[in-house]
């Protein structure tokens, strides 16, 4: 049963990705898309591409395909990070966007861009975004945790404060470092997220971080299950709680930071996806985390498809759409928790 669900999810990712590559401002028939993709994936000269126009080849392989791959990677990374955070804080409201981890990543990226260091290596942006995400996540964690217990109210409040401060810093740096006509564009990108003009270099930029972060996340799934039982129980079941928490936080920051480095702040993905997946797969992280990766990928590919087709030829910011879907969901969760929150 579980295996079937995974196979179904995997097939769905492929189908959604192919649809997203096919649909756009320029109409390209589906079979032409497939042909171009195969021609680029398979060894040279296996597929005849002479009959396909140069424009179509560029649109499919150099514009749409990398964008959809980045969308899938960002969605997978944010959803996995969200699942990790909710497990670690034993708290269904924790997620990278809400407690300021994403904005920390954006600040790191903006700093490295403003100093000009980013031109030396494409890996500088994700590395600094990771450091920003990590610092912000640790700050909120330290503020909200006392003797291994994290209170929901303190976590959310600390998240709001850290979020506000970081966004102010990000806007401040952008205001001083970019030319006037670029400022609003940069600000909108980093604060509201988006996948416009993503190229293959962006794929390579985020792939290593997301791969490593996801790998660590998968290694520590049993510990995450046990941490849900509370720190004392976890400790008495042989988990080195402090060390494991550190590793899981770092991996969540790595996933969030690298995703933010290529997409800006796309909020609510890390909140919504783990909840939905938990209903289908159950709470065991060994299955939850990979299922979140697949579902997160589907969600962001689809949302990005809406973002670029709803209001053609203009694009709606991806972060705006995910917020429109995600914020009501967050409120719903908050209402469900209201009775508990009253006591805090």
């Amino acid at each position: 049963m579980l295996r079937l669900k995974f196979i179904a999810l995997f097939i769905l990712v492929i189908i959604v990705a192919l649809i997203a590559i096919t649909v756009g401002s320029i109409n390209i028939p589906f079979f032409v898309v497939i042909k171009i993709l195969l021609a680029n994936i398979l060894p040279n000269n296996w597929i005849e591409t002479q009959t396909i126009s140069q424009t179509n080849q560029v649109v499919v392989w150099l514009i749409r395909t990398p964008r959809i791959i980045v969308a899938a990677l960002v969605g997978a990374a944010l959803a996995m990070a969200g699942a990790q955070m909710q497990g670690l804080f034993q708290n269904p409201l924790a997620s990278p966007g809400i407690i300021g981890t994403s904005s920390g990543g954006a600040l790191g990226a903006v700093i490295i861009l403003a100093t000009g260091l980013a031109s030396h290596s494409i890996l500088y942006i994700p590395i600094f975004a990771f450091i920003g995400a990590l610092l912000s996540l640790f700050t909120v964690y330290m503020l909200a945790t006392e003797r291994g217990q994290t209170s929901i109210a303190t976590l959310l409040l600390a998240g709001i404060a850290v979020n506000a401060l970081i966004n102010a810093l990000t806007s401040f740096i952008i205001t001083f470092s970019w030319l006037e006509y670029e400022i609003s564009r940069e600000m909108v990108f980093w604060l509201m997220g988006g996948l416009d003009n993503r190229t293959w270099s962006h794929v390579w930029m985020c792939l290593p971080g997301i791969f490593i972060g996801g790998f660590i996340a998968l290694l520590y799934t049993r510990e995450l299950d046990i941490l849900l039982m509370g720190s004392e129980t976890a400790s008495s079941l042989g988990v080195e709680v402090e060390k494991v928490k550190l590793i899981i936080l770092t991996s969540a920051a790595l996933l969030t930071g690298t995703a933010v480095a290529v997409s800006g702040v796309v909020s609510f993905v890390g909140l919504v996806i783990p909840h939905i997946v938990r209903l289908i797969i159950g709470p065991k992280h060994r299955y939850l985390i990979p299922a979140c990766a697949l579902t997160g990928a589907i969600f962001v590919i689809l949302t990005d498809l809406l973002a670029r087709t709803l209001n053609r030829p203009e694009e709606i910011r991806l972060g705006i759409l995910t917020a429109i879907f995600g914020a009501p969901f967050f409120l719903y969760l908050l209402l469900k928790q209201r009775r508990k929150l009253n006591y805090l």
Partner: protein
Amino acid sequence: MNTLVLEKVGIQIDNNWLIRYASLEIQSGQFITFLGANGAGKTTLLRLLAGLWQATAGQVSLNGKILQSFKRRTLAQQISFVPQHSLINFAFTVQEIITMGRNPYLGRFCSESQYDHDCVQYAMEKTDVAHLAKRFINELSGGERQRVMIARSLATQAPIILLDEPTASLDIEHTLEIFALLKSLVAENKTIVLSIHDINTAIRYADQVVLIHQGRIFANGSPEIVLTKPAFAKVFNINAENIFNSNKNKQFFFTKLT
């Protein structure tokens, strides 16, 4: 043969000594209860014995080796701790929860072997929760849930099990059920140490009572010796009358000290 020893142990948190000069020796196959007023330090003492908190003074050792020098996994194979609050909001099945008890034996890349599954099965049968295996933990009653927690402890195969008020939220029937279960574990040479408020239940099942008063071990020994009128007056600020049940077992009737 396992010996868990507290040696002049003290623990200080925020300039406050929660436990002072506590010395105690616990042998295999003993059934020990900690009695004391609220805030006396019962839970703290259990946490020290479980190696969850580190003593500020003195030391806690298992078979002559200080607890802090054990690897967390190795210690988990020897000592199991069941905390009082086990609120679980996530829909794990009973079997999944109990399987977590095998964590101290599992390597990072391993999944559970047949032997691990056998251990889980044995623990479920012993605690009579096998029929609940596929049920969700957050749907169970208090008594069932407590049995699941004990089953998870059994799955760790630790010879020493520490429980913090395991019957705090249970009615009398379920309380007696849990104690009968724990007693049967003692018969299999497990060591059981628990804290409890119900003095009469403690007397009926425990072979040793540790009275804790304001962070110190006030008295320690068999119930007949430790539980005296002056001790009740001092530790609990209550007056105790002896009564005997039909089996001629000593029980107490308590009134407020005036």
